[in-house]
Structure formats: structure tokens, C-alpha cells
């Protein structure tokens, strides 16, 4: 398995490997080599700038302007109107609270289950390949599949969940899940965790496999207990993988859209409205690109803050 090799930073390595084949190029050959590099990288840079930098700049610009397709006569500079709108309307702040709550709970669930799965799958046992594939598949299917699948599982009459509850004579067997605030959140969280926990497990499993086994050997000889070994050896060495999994999952959860759109459309009422859904509606339902731009700028800012917090919390000495 080359996981540990490919897992290290391509940055410094590519810099080292970047020398011209054979070495000893003259100045003009070096310039030629560089020009060749720029030419090769240009398409990717142009595409990425067009679909990330351009929208970002456009959103910032728009957030200071009136730009609503439905109100064509009202255009031009609007100052901070759109941002004031964020904090004074009754949509944005509740959606922010929902989004943060959802992110914290979903990431916590997925990390705990994902970590236990990764530890279990790191052991050798018969049928491990099958178990791994089975657990892996939910991550690979489209979000539409997970959302529709759990919508159908949670259907009050035809779904599995109520059938299970009533056959076990448990309460809530007649719940109309997606019609209540907390039950709708439960359904969304389960659908989201079902699809995304495998991702956490995969990344952490790769991290576990990169830990050299002789460390465990040494711990065993020293008579360390399993729990102590896990806390003192596994967790610290797993930190880089943990950080990758957490950053990815936190940002994705924070921007959750598909599942909410399909399962509840933000309902009942606005009980499961989240920021990404709010932004999408501002753009494509209200066609208010000024307000949508302001929400987008807020989303980008939050994403930066989240990434910044993680890199600070996980600031660790990079393994050589």
C-alpha cells in the first residue's frame, strides 16, 4: 500500500523533483522549462479562476449593489443595505444557528462512529474486505440517493422506521417525521451521517495504516493497556488524518444543501432552513443577486474562519 507515501505533502517533494532532467541547463533552457510549465498549468488555473475567483469577486461586488432580476428598475450601488438585511431579516440568523448546530452534531456523530469503524477495520479478520466494501458504498452513492432513500425510510405509512418502532412496540411509531422540527432534524442527521461517516472512516483508516506496527509492538512489550495504547500512541499519530477528515466534514456539513432541499426544503416552516439553502433560494427563487451575494460572502468568510480555527487547533510539528 502506498498510502503513506502518497499521503505526504507533494509540495516539498515536487519542488525537489522539479529539477530539469539531466541537470546542467543553461539560463535560456531554464527559462524555456519555466515557460513550458506555465503553458501546461494555464488551463487549470484559468478554469479554477473562472469558477471560483470570478464568482467570489462578483459576489462581493453584487453584495454592495441592488441586483434583482425581478426589480430591474432598481439597480446600482446600495452600500451596506444587503448586509444590513442579513442581520435584520428573520431568516439569516436562525439559518446560521441551524447550520452551526447541524454541523456540530453531525461532525461529532460521524467522527465518533467513523473512528471506531476505522479502528475495527484496521484489525485483521475474516471477511474484512466485504465489510469494508459494504460500509464504503453509502459514501459513493449520490446525495440524492441517500436523501431519497431516507425520505422513503422515514415515510409515516410506508417507511421502515415507523414499521420497526411499531413492531417493537416503541413510542413514536406514528410520527410524521419530516413534519416536526426535531424529528425532521433527526431524519436529516441520520441521512447525512449514513452517507458521510464512511468518508471519515476511510480517511482515518488510511491514517491508522500509516502508523508503523513496531510502535505497537513496543507498547505491548512494555505492557501498556489497549486503552492507554490508543490514547498515547494511536490518537497523537492519527492527528494529521483526523484534521483532514474534520476539515472536510465540517466544511461540507456547514454547506449542507442537497439533503435539506430534498428531504424538507427547509421545513416545516423554516425549521430546517440552513445557510446554503437560504443562499440558493436568494439566487434562484428570489433572483436577488445582491442579497445572495451578501450571503455568499458570509459563507466564504465562515469557511475561512472554520479552516483557520482547525489549522490553529491542530498546529502540530509536521512529521519529517
Amino acid at each position: 500500500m502506498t498510502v503513506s507515501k502518497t499521503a505526504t505533502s507533494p509540495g516539498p517533494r515536487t519542488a525537489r523533483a522539479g529539477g530539469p532532467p539531466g541537470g546542467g541547463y543553461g539560463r535560456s533552457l531554464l527559462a524555456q522549462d519555466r515557460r513550458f510549465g506555465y503553458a501546461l498549468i494555464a488551463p487549470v488555473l484559468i478554469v479554477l479562476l473562472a469558477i471560483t475567483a470570478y464568482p467570489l469577486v462578483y459576489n462581493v461586488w453584487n453584495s454592495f449593489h441592488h441586483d434583482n432580476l425581478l426589480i430591474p428598475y432598481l439597480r446600482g450601488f446600495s452600500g451596506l443595505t444587503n448586509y444590513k438585511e442579513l442581520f435584520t431579516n428573520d431568516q439569516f440568523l436562525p439559518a446560521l444557528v441551524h447550520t452551526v448546530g447541524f454541523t456540530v452534531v453531525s461532525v461529532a456523530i460521524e467522527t465518533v462512529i467513523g473512528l471506531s469503524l476505522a479502528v475495527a477495520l484496521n484489525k485483521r479478520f475474516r471477511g474484512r474486505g466485504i465489510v469494508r466494501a459494504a460500509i464504503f458504498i453509502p459514501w459513493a452513492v449520490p446525495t440524492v440517493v441517500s436523501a431519497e432513500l431516507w425520505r422513503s425510510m422515514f415515510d409515516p405509512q410506508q417507511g421502515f422506521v415507523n414499521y420497526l418502532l411499531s413492531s417493537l412496540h416503541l413510542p413514536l411509531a406514528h410520527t410524521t417525521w419530516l413534519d416536526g422540527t426535531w424529528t425532521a432534524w433527526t431524519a436529516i442527521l441520520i441521512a447525512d451521517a449514513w452517507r458521510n461517516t464512511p468518508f471519515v472512516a476511510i480517511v482515518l483508516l488510511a491514517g491508522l495504516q500509516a502508523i508503523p506496527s513496531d510502535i505497537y509492538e513496543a507498547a505491548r512489550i512494555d505492557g501498556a493497556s489497549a486503552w492507554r495504547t490508543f490514547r498515547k500512541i494511536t490518537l497523537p499519530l492519527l492527528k494529521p488524518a483526523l484534521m483532514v477528515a474534520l476539515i472536510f466534514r465540517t466544511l461540507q456539513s456547514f454547506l449542507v444543501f442537497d439533503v435539506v432541499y430534498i428531504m424538507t426544503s427547509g421545513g416545516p416552516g423554516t425549521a430546517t432552513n440552513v445557510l446554503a439553502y437560504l443562499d440558493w433560494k436568494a439566487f434562484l427563487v428570489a433572483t436577488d443577486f445582491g442579497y445572495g451575494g451578501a450571503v455568499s460572502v458570509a459563507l466564504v468568510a465562515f469557511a475561512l474562519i472554520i479552516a483557520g480555527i482547525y489549522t490553529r487547533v491542530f498546529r502540530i510539528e509536521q512529521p519529517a
Partner: protein
Amino acid sequence: MSALVKGAGAAGGRLAVAQRRPAAQRRTVKRAGFGLLMTLFVLASMFPFYWIVITSLKTQSEVNQGTTSLLPGHITWSNYITDFTKEDFIRPLLNSAVVALSTTILTVVIASLAGYALARTQMRGKTIVLGFILVANFFPIIAMVGPLFIAYRRLGLLNSYPALVISCLIYTIPLATWLLSSYFSQIPKSLEEAALVDGSSRLRTLRKVIMPVALPGVFTAAILSFMLTWNDFTFALSFMSTPDKFTAPLAIVNLGQSQYQTFYNLIDAAVVIISIPIALIVIFAQRRIVTGLTAGSFR
């Protein structure tokens, strides 16, 4: 774990007496508990699939009766037939295939070029480029929707394949570039030196010497790109407005809904259909996907 299946059922009974038994038997209990846990995990991830498969095989009257059993009753293929004929689900499947394949090919070509530049030339600003690619990977895609909508509207690209392909590159390009540059930098330099000495141009060397050697990496990048694009919902929802241009995920959401009822058997049949290619890819290329995913996400 030889006791994986056998031990799972007996675990409950054995736990009570575990304390007094010798070490060997304690280990059996432990194994049984582990087996039980694994069985639970597999059930949790696979049962929903079983559920939609049996729902997709139910007649409308069976569905209307509500759930009475976990076993499929009278099996009917009529939902699949309805999906493919009346609901015209073939069209969105083809649209999805066209978009996913175009995006994949475009991604592999330009990400290979960029990956090679990052791995094997002395261009300046590599760190900045890599940093930008990484940040782009985390860009909130919902924030792209508004500005791209306006841009596509001006360019007359709304409701067209190119709009979707261009947008979907945000899923694929960062991962593929990262993956391929780390793959290229592992290929021994002597290979291309030999070709260059023989007078082959660098672009030709990349195509004829490097790419064949890097084929596993290219293949991994292609598989991941295909999956990520096949799974897109947000962009299709935002830019495709007529049913003849819907991709499969978008079509599913609009399928089997009437004002009074949701036809889960029709929806679930379509969900089964759209999951099949992905399930096949996972089963046959699992290791590759895992390697690609971890290489792409680690720094």
C-alpha cells in the same frame, strides 16, 4: 476473526458467564462481540439499500397498504418499466453519462498537464498554485451558483451541457491535479531523460512515456472525477430547466410526485438504477478509490 458469523448469535448468552471462564473463552466472547458489532455496521449501511430494492418491486396497491413485512411480497418489475417508458428515465441517465464523461475527459487532460508542470518543471510559484488549488477545493459551491447563473445567462449557456460540465470541474480539478502531480513526481526521471535524449519533444514525452507509466494514477483520477460528477445535484438543479436536459439525480427528485401522493416505488426504482453504476465502480475499484481519496485529501 473466525467467529465472525458463528459467534454473533451466541454473544448475548455468553457474556453473563464470561467473568469466571478462562482466558481462551474470554477471547471467544470478545470475538463474538466484535463480530456482532461488525454485523451491525454492515446492516446499518446495507439495509436501506435492501429496503429501496424491495420497495421498488412492490405494486402500487401493496405500497398503499403500508408496510406489513420485511420480505418482498408479490414481485413486480412494473415500476422499472414505468420509469423507463412513461417517466422517460433513460434520457436523464444519458444526460448524466454525457456530462460525467465529458467532465472526466476534460479533467484528466488538463489536470495531467498541470500535474506534470507541478511535478517536473521549474516554474515559479508552485507553492502558490498548490495553495490556490487546495483552497479552491474548499470553495463553497453554493456561492458559485448565482454569479455562474448570470454568466451562463449572458453567454446563452443556461440549460446546456457545457454549463454543467464547466461548473462540475470544481469537484474534479483540485483533486485530480493534486493526485496526478504526486503520481508524476514518483516516476523515475531516467525514463523521460532517455526519451528526451532521443530527441522527443517534451509534450510528446509526456504523452508517450509518462502517461502510460502513470496510467494507474490517471485511472484513479478518472474514476473519482466520474463519481463526483455523476453525483452532482446542486448545479443541475440550478442551471438545467427543461426535463429533456435534467440529469438523473435531478430527474429523480421530480419523479413520482403528485399533489396528493409520493410514489416511493417509482422513486426507489430510479434510485436503484442510478446507484448501480456507482456500486459496480466501488466493488471493482475500491482500493484505487481509497488510495486516490486519501492521496487527494492528505497534505
